[in-house]
């Protein structure tokens, strides 16, 4: 028997921190589907081959990630996530210009990167980080009471009142952002995690993926 000595050190279970509405991790071998591990059956899928993000084994801390080509790769959620309050955690390398999640047609929430990281609400409202990102980071978006809060590697980046922050309907978006996106893990809680649970979840996820604070 081969025992992975790092297995327990990097274990991450989002259910330790709250109810989970969707969870995509380093699992699956079929590029047409990123299985939802939350138990809600909200798999992220793409039937068209040219739009399927590639699975890259061992890309980060020995674990696989999904790589979106920045032209047309896109995964669609089986069901749109419409919870008004939520906490979303992403382990991602957003390249030089990419949209991570949300919707960027008409109005709607989009988490995107263009030199720095922004949340846009489709109506001109934005909250952004002044931090220039390079390589993999843990990005957290917390929505509560109409206020959106952005964190990078567990460090607060700013708060802003935004509208139109739902639904979350897709992962990656090639229509308007053409940078390569590498996405390692996505967890969406249907509640705004408090300031005890959120940092604890972030620390565990950063440990799993070897992201330094």
């Amino acid at each position, binding site marked *: 028997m081969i025992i992975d000595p790092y297995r327990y050190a990097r274990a991450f279970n989002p259910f330790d921190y709250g109810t989970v509405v969707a969870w995509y991790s380093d699992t699956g071998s079929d590029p047409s589907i990123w299985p939802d591990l939350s138990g809600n059956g909200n798999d992220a899928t793409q039937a068209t*081959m040219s739009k399927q993000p590639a699975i890259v084994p061992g890309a980060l801390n020995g674990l696989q990630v999904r790589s979106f080509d920045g*032209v047309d790769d896109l995964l669609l959620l089986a069901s749109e996530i419409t919870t008004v309050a939520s906490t979303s955690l992403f382990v991602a390398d957003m390249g030089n210009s990419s949209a991570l999640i949300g919707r960027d047609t008409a109005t709607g929430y989009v988490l995107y990167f263009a030199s720095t990281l922004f949340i*846009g609400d489709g109506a001109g409202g934005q909250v952004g980080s002044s931090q220039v990102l390079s390589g993999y980071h843990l990005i957290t978006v917390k929505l509560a009471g109409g206020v959106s809060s952005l964190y990078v590697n567990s460090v607060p980046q700013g708060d802003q009142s935004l509208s139109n922050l739902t639904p979350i309907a897709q992962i990656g978006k090639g229509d308007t952002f053409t940078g390569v996106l590498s996405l390692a893990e996505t967890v969406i809680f249907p509640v705004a995690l408090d300031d005890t649970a959120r940092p604890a979840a972030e620390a565990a996820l950063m440990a799993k993926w070897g992201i330094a604070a």
Partner: protein
Amino acid sequence: MRYLIIIPAADKDRANAAAQAHFDALGGAFTFTVPLFLADAETDETPSHYWCSAEVAPANVPTLLAMQAGFPSSHINEYDLAAQPDYPQDRLATLGLRTARPVL
């Protein structure tokens, strides 16, 4: 081998049919759905082109390249996604095209 494929909007239906027939029976009909616009177009109402980026198995490359004869105004270029992450944008600039403007 990864290819960036840009087709005129007028060829969209024919190109999607060809993609389905030759490469992707399940989802090929939706290969070309991402619109492109002339760089100086003021609105995003009328796409001038569509594009896709696809990993093509070496055995299928001759078929892809042969299809270009049926789409003489298309642009089919091989590139390396890891080594040339900016290639798609650079190619658009060369051709005087742009992607849709994001709604933020």
